[in-house]
């Protein structure tokens, strides 16, 4: 690998997380504006999410419960920063050919682990309950999610995200070829983002916001950053798998990401909350059934 390639790669590795974060901020704004409209409010101004994060980082009182608490937040943010390099953007592939979609999925588990460790050190039972529910929720939505990943990988014959985009550019969006899988993917996305009716792990009134109970200052700021990254990553991954990754054009890509994210957000604000076992039971039935049906179609036609 010569010097120009190395320089280009370094630039991409810096740019991709930065862009992801920025787009994520706007996705947070989108979420809050949609929520506001559905609740007949105006909603926050344009740069509110960024302002919130700056406020958190700049607070005077920053309480930590121990070194693992700190490391947990570092892992939560750092994991996502690293994951962005594996998720291709229009014009930038980053390290997507050194690690495929399976690696990306595992990278997305690292922030959750970091958060879990940090919350554990906080020693607040509300937080631990929240993590317990979050992990249980993971058992729920991950199964249809990996079914979808399997189906998509089988259909394209590859687990390399760059190749998947290329194939969709040649042959058309995955959405038309794998409609059932796309729906199942959208449903599992609802669980992955922790949006109502699947936000049991937060449960603000019941367990005092769960994992966030002892987070303040830059710790809460870190969680906000993580949320921005999470919204972007979910949307971008879905767009890459099913919508051709924007066909290599930034406007199309951004539009796809925002539309894809708008769907769970709109659904979310209209629902109350499922209990944990209801969530598991629901996920193990309908999205799984759809996903398996989708795989059957994909593998036999």
């Amino acid at each position, binding site marked *: 690998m010569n010097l120009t390639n190395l320089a280009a790669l370094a630039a991409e590795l810096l740019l991709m*997380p930065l862009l992801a974060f920025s787009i994520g901020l706007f996705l947070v704004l989108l979420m809050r504006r949609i929520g506001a409209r559905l609740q007949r409010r105006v909603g926050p101004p344009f740069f509110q999410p960024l302002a919130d994060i700056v406020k958190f980082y700049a607070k005077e009182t920053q309480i930590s419960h121990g070194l693992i608490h700190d490391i947990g937040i570092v892992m939560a943010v*750092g994991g996502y920063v690293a994951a962005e390099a594996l998720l291709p953007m229009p014009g930038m592939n980053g390290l997507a050919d050194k*690690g495929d979609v399976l690696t990306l999925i595992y990278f997305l588990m690292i922030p959750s682990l970091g958060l879990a460790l940090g919350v554990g050190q906080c020693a607040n039972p509300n937080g631990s309950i929240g993590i317990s529910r979050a992990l249980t929720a993971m058992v729920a939505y991950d*199964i249809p999610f990996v079914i979808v990943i399997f189906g998509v990988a089988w259909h394209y014959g590859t687990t390399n995200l760059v*190749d998947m985009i290329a194939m969709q550019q040649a042959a058309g969006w995955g959405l038309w070829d794998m409609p059932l899988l796309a729906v199942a993917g959208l449903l599992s996305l609802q669980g992955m983002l922790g949006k109502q009716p699947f936000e049991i792990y937060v449960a603000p009134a019941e367990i005092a916001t769960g994992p966030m109970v002892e987070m303040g200052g830059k710790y809460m700021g870190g969680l906000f950053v993580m949320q921005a990254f999470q919204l972007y990553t979910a949307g971008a991954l879905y767009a890459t798998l099913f919508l051709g990754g924007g066909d290599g054009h930034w406007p199309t890509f951004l539009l796809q990401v925002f539309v894809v994210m708008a769907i769970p957000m709109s659904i979310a604000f209209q629902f109350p909350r499922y209990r944990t076992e209801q969530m598991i039971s629901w996920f193990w039935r309908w999205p799984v059934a759809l996903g398996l049906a989708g795989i059957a179609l994909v*593998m036999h036609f």
Partner: protein
Amino acid sequence: MTPLDTLFILSACTLAVAWAFGRRPAAGGLIAVLYGGQILALAKMSGLASGALTMIAASPSFEVLGQALSWRFDGPAWFFALITLGAAFASAWFMAGEWGEGYRRKGGRLGLLQVALALNVSSMLLLLASGDLLSLFIGWELMSWASFLLMLSAGGVAVRWAFKYLIYALGGAMALLGALAWIHAQAGSLQYAAVAGLFATLSPGQAWTLVLAFAAGFGIKMALLPFHLWQGPAYAETPGPGSAFLGAISSRMGLFGILVVLVHLAGLDLLDRLLIPFTHLDARDLLGWVGAFTLIVPTFIAVRQHDARHLLAWHGIGQGGYMLIGVMQGDALGSAGGLLHVFNYATYQAALFLVVTAVVHRTGTADLNKLGGLVTRMPLSFLVMLVGIIGLAGLPPMNGFVSKWLIYRDLISSGRPLMFVATVIGTLGTIISVYKLIHNTFLGQLRMEHEDIREAPWSMLAPMLGLIVIVFLTGLMPGLVLDWIAPVQAALGLPVLDHSLGGVDLPNGGLDMLWVVGLLFAGFGVGALLFLAGNRHRYVHPLDNYAGGHFLTTEVRYHYSDDFYPGLMHLIGGWYRGSIQWLERALVSALDFLAQWSQAWFRSAQPALWLLGVTVFALWWVV
């Protein structure tokens, strides 16, 4: 005198030293050094690992009953021997020093433990070196009995479970003996070449009987379903370093047996040809699915455990299922994944068992509901457990991720969605279970009675830290271990995996751990920078916690530990029916009933009348 002879002699010396001096804690260091010496002797045979040599024979060979017994090392033997000796070395190092003294002080039989460990190692080396089916059986029996001795050594509750293990193990041994005798009767010889030739000529019925007999015989040692009930408690009740050794490698001897007999001698093609009527499954699928269910069921049994050792022991059974799935896939990626998992699993499982033992040593309990918050008192032990659980869960950057990635990748390429989902279910169960382990032990509230405990001593920390360094390095550079696996695949007749130092380079989605781990740590670096860019933080007292207006005091126990996953258990709690436990009890009752019947016959009151009746019957039969 071949290098293999040197290894055997060293092993016998270790056994002798353990017998003579094992009960003195001071001798533990010498024994650990001897195990290190055995590793060096093994390293002398590293030609087997690089593929330069295919076989190193041992000098002794006998002929009994017309059968030639010989011993030799090849690629697979070297690989498994490395893991065995590494686990033994770590366990022995752990035992030498404070743990041994403490064990002795509490009335444990340290000498018996040392002897049992050395006997296990020697018999495993003998098993791995077998050059024909008869010496394989002899080694298998010796190893089974040695494991029995190791499980017994703690006394008390352990004896009951060791006895249960014995029954299972002997049942498996009888299946193997029957298969062996049948092969001897048909082929006249138990040399590997003759056996392979026999397998090629069998009718489906005969082949099925043999395959099932061998799978059952070896599978019982691996605790494959439905023979899984003995291993969890039996390994958990073995004294600490013993359980680390057993968990790391003992069950994998069953996998070795399956590799030698079913994969190499019988061949996966034969297994493909054995169809199960009325389904589209064959014997290979059957074994793969047995592996899948072995992965899922024991993992979810582990979720319910609240004793740390039992939790780890049940996970051990589950991870064996991964290895079987990988091996049964039979192609380069899958089999490499399965074999790599044997190595990876041994490293982090040994570390986890050792750290749990260290916690028990300091706090006196392994009950997850009675621990908590130890990270402030035992930070290095926390680090070991953290690396261990990341490995066990299969997350990057540790080595567990690579072997799981290989298996997943292979399942996708070969188009097996249901198996893929089954393995993912297993992984998810593992993740939730290991988080509970680390949360209940090291995170959360520190108990009053544990305020004064200290970090584990260096004699215990050193082997644990060494193990996690190996876990990380082999995660960073999996090519190192994949180099050793290539000759194993070649020797077993499996396709060899093309790999690089960092992983595999596939055209349709590969893995390069050097880049991946580098990326991860770069991300962590950025995260750290962002963190430090914020305002200064300060540390607060653990009791300074949001409690809804209440004051927290040290006597108030607010650590969330018991019934950690109530939501999940609400749903799946009713699925734990214990059917196989019922089956076990039913078999024992049936045996009791039959035994009572036979005893009654012996006690019959009128022997002469009975004899008359028998004579009449005999005459009738004759005429």
